[in-house]
């Protein structure tokens, strides 16, 4: 947007459009109007005296073509002339457009119109709203206090100007790094799988010949789609990425992590996250298992009906059921109506915590129930019949037959259940928004890590800080899962 001297503009004018030089220099008998520097959609006109003393204001008119009468042009603006005492001068940039008198910012009246002091001999104004890349014809018409033009409005001699200053656009993000990263990730995944395959071949594990091929599609799709965003997220945690300067981030080391540990309430929110996740997954598994076992009883009537109804919390979109719970928990909602009370369940920290957990349990049980039902149905009945004949008690059957056979299902669903609960955003966000408040500038009573991260990222725009929180969440989950899997030996192949 480098301002060009008006001479250059004028010169290009003469060359390109072969206009007569007088056109750019005639407005009134005494007053001279010239087109000055330009910016995007804006031309500056400069009016230099002598000014007709009767002038009360100037009307600025413009059009896309040359005109001589006012009805061929469009009214642009009014510049007043008169006493400026008691009027304010806006700072540079504060007004919608810029007008200057003898080099200083012009005064403005209460409607924002520029007012030129009667003593001034020259003024200039930015004329906004021009069509870029086209010649614009501009006429400045002085009028007296009665609004009568002080020059012949049927023989106007407008000045011409043209702004070619281009519009400034945000450059589109460079997608090449993403392309390279994706290529590198996919190629390394393939290379790694091939290497492992070669290693197996060298060791003579022939049974596993096709194994790598079987897992390859899944691994490659997974890596291709999700590794880049995660790596990017991890990198973000070490930068000062912030909404206020996106696309211009600097590496700042561990500063974000230091900031995280300085957050008031970090230990409380971490503790509640663990309580939340453990309570959720425990009850999901327990209740899901009990229901699945109850429904697995041979000869029980109405199984399909029970199962279908018990599935509903899973089938109904989560946000509507959470909102339904929110409505039911209102002081005049269904639950209070049932109890005959007026309790605001979400106002008290302790009650709100219990309530969000209960609602999330409600949401999650059906999935576990369905998982366990599937697994139970696949267990052979003969096994239990044999046990029955041997006089093994029900309880012992459950402990020694059913549960070990369910382990293969239980381990992954409980682990994933834990991970999902840990990062479960919707229930809390829709039910309590993390509230009730505990204090200023710290997480709310029902905030878990991920809801707080959301706030850091999207309310305050601190992407780097939010990414640092995310990395910590990630590390906690990795640690937990690793231990859990080692304890349960779930990665072992079948014997």
């Amino acid at each position, binding site marked *: 947007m480098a301002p060009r001297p008006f001479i250059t503009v004028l010169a290009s004018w003469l060359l390109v459009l072969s206009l007569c030089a007088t056109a750019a220099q005639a407005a009134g008998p005494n007053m001279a109007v010239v087109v000055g520097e330009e910016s995007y959609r804006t031309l500056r006109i400069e009016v230099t005296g002598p000014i007709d003393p009767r002038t009360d204001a100037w009307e600025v008119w413009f059009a896309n073509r040359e005109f001589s009468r006012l009805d061929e042009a469009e009214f642009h603006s009014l510049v007043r002339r008169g006493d400026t005492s008691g009027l304010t001068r806006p700072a540079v940039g504060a007004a919608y457009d810029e007008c200057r008198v003898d080099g200083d910012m012009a005064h403005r009246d209460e409607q924002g119109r520029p007012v030129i002091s009667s003593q001034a001999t020259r003024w200039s104004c930015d004329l906004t709203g021009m069509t870029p890349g086209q010649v614009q014809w501009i006429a400045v018409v002085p009028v007296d206090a009665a609004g009568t033009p002080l020059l012949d409005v049927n023989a106007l001699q407008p000045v011409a100007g043209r702004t070619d200053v281009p519009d400034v656009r945000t450059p589109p993000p460079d997608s090449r790094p993403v392309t390279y990263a*994706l290529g590198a990730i996919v190629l390394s995944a393939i290379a790694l799988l091939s290497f492992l395959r070669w290693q197996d071949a060298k060791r003579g594990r022939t049974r596993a010949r096709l194994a790598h091929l079987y897992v390859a599609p899944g691994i490659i799709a997974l890596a291709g789609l999700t590794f880049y965003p995660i790596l990017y997220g991890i990198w973000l945690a070490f930068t000062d990425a912030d909404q206020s300067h996106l696309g211009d981030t600097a590496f700042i080391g561990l500063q974000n992590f230091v900031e995280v540990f300085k957050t008031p309430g970090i230990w409380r929110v971490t503790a509640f996250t663990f309580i939340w996740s453990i309570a959720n997954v425990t009850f999901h598994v327990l209740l899901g298992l009990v229901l699945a076992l109850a429904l697995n009883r041979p000869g*029980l009537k109405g199984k399909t009906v029970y199962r279908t109804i018990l599935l509903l919390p899973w089938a109904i979109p989560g946000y509507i059921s959470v909102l339904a719970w929110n409505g039911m928990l209102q002081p005049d909602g269904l639950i209070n109506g049932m109890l005959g009370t007026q309790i605001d369940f979400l106002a008290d920290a302790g009650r709100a915590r219990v309530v969000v957990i209960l609602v999330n349990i409600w949401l999650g049980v059906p999935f576990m129930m369905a998982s366990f039902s599937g697994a139970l149905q696949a267990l052979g009945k*003969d096994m239990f019949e044999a046990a029955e004949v041997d006089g093994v008690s029900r309880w012992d059957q459950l402990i020694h037959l059913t549960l070990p056979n369910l382990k293969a299902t239980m381990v992954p669903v409980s682990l994933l259940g834990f991970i999902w609960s840990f990062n479960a955003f919707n229930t809390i966000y829709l039910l309590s928004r993390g509230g009730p408040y505990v204090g200023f500038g710290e997480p709310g009573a029902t905030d878990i890590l991920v809801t707080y991260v959301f706030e850091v990222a999207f309310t305050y725009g601190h992407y780097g800080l939010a990414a640092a929180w995310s990395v910590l969440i990630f590390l906690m989950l990795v640690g937990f899962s690793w231990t859990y899997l080692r304890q349960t030996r779930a990665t072992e192949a079948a014997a």
Partner: protein
Amino acid sequence: MNQTVAQKSYVPAELLALRSWLPAAAAMNGLLFVGEALRASPGGMGLTATGLLLLLALRFTLPAQAGAGRLWALRLLAMALIAVGFGAFMLTDRTLYDVWSRAWLLGPGVLVLAWSFFAPVQAWSTGKGGPEAAEEGLARNRTRLPRLETRALHLFLLHAIAVIIVPVIWIADVAVSPGNILGGRIGDAFTLEHFRSVLGGSQFWIWTRNSLIIAIGTTLVGLALAVPAGYAYSRYDFAGRKGSMFAFLLVQMFPGIIILVPYFMVMKTLGLLNTSIGLIIVYSVTALPLCVWMLKGFFDTVPRALEEAALLDGCTQLEVFFRIVLPLSLPAVGMTALFSFIAAWNEFLLALVFNTSNDRYTLPVGLSSMIPANGQLWGDFAAASIVVSIPVVVLFMLFQRSLIQGLSAGSVKG
């Protein structure tokens, strides 16, 4: 005194049942006590607590062995329980909830009282009746006990269903109530206007079509990716096995919300924005960890001997898989299919971020675009949610049926 085996092992079914039911009823009253505490009603709290203690007392007063007597004590306690239950009931406004909560005091009381007069119970407790009576009683127990158990089971399941269904009824009530209010008395008015406006909307069927395509696509692609992987993890020990299994879980651990923009860039680079296939791939990958792990666990329980036998019979690897392993793992395959379907069907955030064209909207995104800036169209929204969950319910019912058929067709496993 010489007792026969039958005499030693015989306990009337009613007493057996009460042994586990009374503690259950006590536990239930523990829960109801919380309700009374929320009401801040000292009378209710006191009576519920008394009832709870009486139930426990009843449990320990139950005759432990034949001839223990104590029937009068039992009856007295039961009558006390009934009195407490009745008193507690009189304290309340007699709403549906009150009837139900007091039934947990009155019901056990009445049951104990009635059964204490039941001839076989009386005979056994007072030690009357010889070996024949015991034989007879054992025979009676064989039909009686399962029946009692089934009833208890139904009672339990009905409670579970009540907890599940109350919010659902509430949503249904919002959907059929005129106006757009959240709440109000259930069943006070009825209208189909919300269903009409949802189903008559110009966009609803486009959203449904998109959602169906994407959910079915996800199910198929998800299974195609997960089944071979799950099988390989179950059957083969190969280099990189544990690491890659863990990698599947790893991607679920990073909070997704923070990496939406880079994810968006990946999708843009791959040219997958505003496409159904883009979302299908994204959802398949999201569902992959659960599907792979679940299938792996399931394949683990299919005995290898079956496969080896089939291989010896000259079947190819592929035949073995499709003819033996897959049919036996149908429940898990069905479960993972259902999981993929529902995950894709209900997903909101990615569907919104990766699709900014109205004719690509899925149901969740479309539904939320019905919400105005100020005040919500709760009625329409609730009606739409019900309509949206119907396909899932239907699918689940089909899935249950095919499962049962599939299992009875190939019950070879042991």
